[in-house]
């Protein structure tokens, strides 16, 4: 299955556990699915030079990020035998402990969804133009950089 229409991956603020549960529920009618793999990125209270991160403010070059993720999605459908795929990323402020990335793939057999979710997460981290301002308690900030 391949989805040609470009989707908007961005949601304002944190991704709620309820949104994740709803997304899982919607797959219970798809009885050809045997396994789901879900990755959730959560904002960490990192200590940087003695200060603790309290939130990350995400921005993105939205059109390019959506296009890039569209291509990642197409590549994943090509490489792996998937039933469904869902990708969401936060924009704006996400507090520590909250979820900023939700990648969800489903397949008949577990290998495909395991491989696909990991592939998608790695691709997003390296290729999608998204930016994160790590804000400290004292309102100063640093810019996050993916490794």
């Amino acid at each position: 299955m391949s989805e040609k229409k470009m989707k908007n991956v961005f949601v304002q603020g944190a991704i709620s556990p309820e949104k994740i549960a709803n997304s899982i529920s919607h797959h219970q009618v798809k009885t050809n699915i045997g396994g789901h793999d879900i990755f959730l990125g959560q904002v960490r209270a990192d200590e940087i030079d003695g200060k603790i991160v309290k939130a990350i403010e995400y921005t993105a070059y939205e059109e390019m990020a959506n296009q890039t993720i569209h291509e990642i999605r197409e590549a994943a459908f090509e490489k792996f035998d998937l039933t469904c795929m869902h990708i969401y990323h936060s924009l704006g402020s996400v507090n520590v402990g909250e979820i900023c990335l939700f990648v969800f793939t489903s397949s008949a057999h577990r290998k495909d969804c395991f491989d696909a979710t990991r592939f998608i997460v790695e691709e997003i981290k390296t290729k999608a133009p998204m930016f994160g301002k790590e804000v400290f308690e004292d309102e100063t900030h640093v810019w996050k950089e993916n490794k």
Partner: protein
Amino acid sequence: MKLKVKYFGLIAEFVGASEQSVIAKGLSVQDLRHQLETEYPKLKTITYQIAVNQKITSDQYLFNDGDELALLPPFAGG
């Protein structure tokens, strides 16, 4: 040539704007890189990529009319 240039994250901070109309003094991405680094010397202190029309491009790329450029600091998605 007149170019639309977008700035993101750290670079938007350096420039003090998220978008500018820039009169390019040269013809290539490399020329624009030099021009902006002269105007905003802090750009020289970081690594950044340049996208033209939403694709990462090489310094050799020669502009066409209506191109949308973007200066992209390191990515931090996820």
